[in-house]
């Protein structure tokens, strides 16, 4: 049997294949190369299953189910024919070749003869599926998914708890509590280790010191991050340092400029009132983490990473800090705090300000807290607490309801 050479990876594939068995390249436009068949392989007239069909043209047989039902060439004659093929001319001539897939090719084609084991196939592992089952699976994998046009029989839905009702009841309860004006406990923001160290690191900076800022959060997390960023940025501006602001995100510069404008308006309301606006120069570097080491070639007295993810800080510590040896301060979301705490304990971070709690205490250390910021932070801390309580209540309700449902089912 002639085979089709894959134009991408050079693998010989069986005739009639739609896709390469190794790399998945499209073979539908390919035709087998002209190969002189060995004399022994010339088909005798009696070999054809039916009249008009030959082993090389199984699609002419009446029972042929589709192009993918051509069996694998696994007998000796076909192997000999494949061995006689010229060796992979196309990929060797290309610059990019030899990059293979990570997984071994999977044999997905059905072999109808597997249903009836013969003496030749005795040593081969038997598939637990019939040819028809395999054909259906293959059709599912090859064809694009389509919506069923007619009505389909759906299994009866399993008994489940009515989630919206539980959410509604809980939401109404919280709203009523808040509306009633009861003095609810809001809780004080917690002082985590690292905030005072961060304040001290910024406060030690001499006037005109060079500070690198990596702006590594996007608008999705700006709701939390802007409140955390503001006191540290305010402190840096008060120290009159030179800021070198860089972002690896396309929307990072816009986020940075917005926070800078807000902080400046709070810090210098008189200038803001007469329309004086200072702007912040922010460089956007495309290329992602790869270009981070380039920032290490510039010396700095301090590096501050404003990032919502722990990975942003970690990448700076790995790629930049070892090169320019500047101490690193992390200003992050509360979610990034636990993974970063070991870096603080090991001394790789000189300070860590995270979440609303961190921002609140940084403002306290700063001693010039804008009342609006304090109100906002206390509201956020309280809201976060109520949110945690809500999650706790939902879990308890879920377990309770499941236990009750289980009892009813048992009874």
């Amino acid at each position: 049997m002639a085979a089709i050479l894959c134009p991408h990876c050079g693998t010989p594939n069986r005739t009639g294949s739609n896709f390469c068995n190794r790399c998945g390249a499209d073979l539908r436009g390919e035709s087998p190369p002209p190969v002189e068949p060995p004399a022994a392989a010339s088909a005798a007239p009696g070999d054809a299953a039916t009249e008009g069909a030959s082993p090389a043209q199984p699609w002419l047989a009446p029972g042929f189910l589709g192009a993918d039902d051509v069996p694998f060439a696994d007998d000796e004659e076909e192997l000999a024919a494949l061995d006689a093929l010229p060796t992979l001319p196309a990929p060797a001539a290309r610059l990019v070749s030899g990059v293979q897939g990570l997984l071994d090719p999977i044999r997905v084609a059905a072999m109808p003869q597997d249903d009836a084991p013969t003496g030749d196939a005795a040593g081969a592992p038997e598939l637990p599926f019939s040819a028809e089952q395999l054909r259906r699976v293959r059709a599912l994998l090859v064809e694009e998914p389509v919506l069923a046009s007619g009505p389909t029989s759906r299994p009866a839905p399993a008994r489940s708890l009515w989630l919206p009702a539980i959410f509604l009841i809980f939401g109404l309860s919280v709203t009523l509590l808040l509306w009633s004006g009861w003095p609810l406990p809001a809780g004080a923001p917690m002082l985590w280790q690292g905030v005072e160290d961060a304040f001290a690191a910024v406060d030690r900076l001499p006037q005109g010191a060079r500070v690198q800022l990596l702006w590594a959060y996007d608008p999705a997390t700006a709701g939390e991050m802007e409140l955390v960023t503001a006191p540290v940025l305010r402190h840096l501006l008060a120290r009159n340092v030179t800021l070198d602001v860089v972002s690896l995100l396309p929307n990072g510069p816009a986020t940075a400029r917005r926070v800078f404008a807000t902080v400046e308006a709070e810090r210098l309301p008189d200038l803001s009132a007469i329309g004086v606006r200072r702007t912040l120069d922010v460089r956007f570097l495309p290329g992602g983490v790869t270009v981070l080491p380039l920032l290490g070639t510039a010396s700095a007295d301090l590096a501050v990473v404003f990032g919502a993810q722990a990975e942003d800080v970690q990448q700076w510590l790995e790629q930049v800090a070892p090169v320019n040896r500047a101490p690193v301060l992390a200003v992050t979301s509360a979610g990034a705090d636990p993974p970063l705490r070991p870096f603080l304990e090991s001394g790789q971070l000189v300070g860590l300000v995270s979440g609303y709690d961190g921002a609140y205490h940084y403002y306290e250390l700063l001693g010039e807290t804008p009342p609006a910021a304090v109100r906002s932070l206390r509201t956020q801390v309280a809201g976060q607490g109520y949110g945690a309580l809500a999650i706790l209540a939902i879990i308890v309700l879920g377990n309770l309801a499941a236990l009750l449902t289980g009892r009813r089912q048992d009874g």
Partner: protein
Amino acid sequence: MASPPVRTNWLFVILLVAALAFVVLGRLPGWPGFSTVTRTGYTWAILLGGVALLLGVVNVLWLHIRRIALGQRDWGLSLVLVAVLVAVASSGLLSPAGAASPLLEWIFDAVIAPGQAALFALLVFFMAAAAFQYLRIGRRGGAWLLAGFLVILAAQTPFVTAWLPPGSADAANWFLNAPVMAALRGVLLGGSLALLVVGLRLLLGRP
């Protein structure tokens, strides 16, 4: 059927080893020449990143213009996408202030930032629904998962901490800092080593 012999692309291997050598030696003191070459390489990476970004924009435009031209399913959404892309790009390109143009800043502040924040805020509802459905005592290992979740959540919530017995918040923090962090770092290390090995196998042509 015997698979064809896998060939090693030595061009890639040589490039990799050269890049690795330059980066490593560039970090060592006393090799100023290497750091110069490495810096040039990083600058090239920035250029490549910019080109990749432009290619991405062209690709998106091409794909969606084709969808519109052929009238494929949801072509209307493609039309909206192309129109918005052109509007935002031209608001920056046509303004003398460039990326800092007031219109672009307004688009960012009034459209992009609230939209992304709103989408991100939905996460809490997914989390609540997932917690409701899966943090169950009856599930396999569910009791352990539930206990761990409740302890950590309670210890991190300010006004719940006040009701907890003394030392419980410290215990939860120790749990986070010692065993959880050890496991997390193990996973990170294992992942990095696996990535290294897979990369080497790929480059050496032994997938």
